[in-house]
């Protein structure tokens, strides 16, 4: 008898099953993510005290840092899905890899925009060709490259393979982004928050940040399912189960 977890994993590879799964869990993840983020945002805007040097502008950190982490984590996950799709030819992994790209691009855009807005009062400039900022901008271009390549080729499977390859190659940028503040002289501040080590922030300022980190991760899961569902329906257009679903919703 097959292990239930293995059986569920095999079932998930079936497009109609995945459609039902994502239709059920995407709203749950979005709702839960929103709830946790609402708690984090309330803490960030109304509970934690202003920084003694940066004043209220430091509150931008609560959206900037989780978004920056998500921008890199999403790219790593996209590359993992793309590698699995390339090696084992699992269609669902192709779909999931390509669903990561717009979400990752959104988080990268938030990182760059909020960083720029934060930079103006603190550094006196909206933008600087600093290693951290430049590598994060290259990450955005990589995401856009993956999205563009995927939509430029008609055959969905060939498109996913080509774009997936770009995602795998692009992974080399992630350690460069992470260590850019250590390797080079940077206008961007060094690491102040650590997942496992000691954070250089007062403990009273940390709970909303962790809430935002968890919230953005849960939100990401909801977006991943919703976007993968849309791509799954696009690829399966013309199949009986999609026609049945369309009739059921009319």
């Amino acid at each position, binding site marked *: 008898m097959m292990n239930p977890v293995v059986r569920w994993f095999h079932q998930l590879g079936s497009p109609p099953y995945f459609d039902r799964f994502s239709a059920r869990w995407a709203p749950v993840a979005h709702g839960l993510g929103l709830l946790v983020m609402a708690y984090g945002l309330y803490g960030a805007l109304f509970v934690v005290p202003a920084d003694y040097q940066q004043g209220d502008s430091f509150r931008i950190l609560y959206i900037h840092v989780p978004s920056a982490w998500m921008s890199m984590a999403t790219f790593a996950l996209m590359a993992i899905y793309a590698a699995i799709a390339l090696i084992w030819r699992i269609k669902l992994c192709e779909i999931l890899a390509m669903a990561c790209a717009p979400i990752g691009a959104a988080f990268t855009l938030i990182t760059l925009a909020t960083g720029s807005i934060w930079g103006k009062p603190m550094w006196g400039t909206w933008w600087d060709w600093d290693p951290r900022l430049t590598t994060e901008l290259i990450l955005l271009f990589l995401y856009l490259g993956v999205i563009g390549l995927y939509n430029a080729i008609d055959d969905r499977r060939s498109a996913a393979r080509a774009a997936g390859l770009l995602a795998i190659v692009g992974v080399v940028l992630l350690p460069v982004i992470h260590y850019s503040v250590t390797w080079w002289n940077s206008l961007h501040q060094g690491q102040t928050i650590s997942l496992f080590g000691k954070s250089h922030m007062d403990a009273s300022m940390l709970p909303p940040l962790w809430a935002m980190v968890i919230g953005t991760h849960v*939100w990401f899961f909801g*977006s991943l399912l919703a976007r993968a569902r849309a791509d799954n329906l696009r690829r399966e257009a013309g199949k009986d189960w999609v026609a049945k679903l369309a009739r059921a919703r009319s």
Partner: protein
Amino acid sequence: MSYRDYVIAAYGVFAVVMLWDFFAPHIAIRQHVRAARLRAARMASNAKESGFPLSRE
């Protein structure tokens, strides 16, 4: 040192991008389901016009 406008602008960007991230896939899903419904209706009407049943069941 309040920098309130900068904070509002940053959180505004965050809210707008997250809203787009939420609505874009839902709009795409709705479009795909609608296209499938139209395709099914077209096939049914073509079958009716040609006089052949869709299936023998």
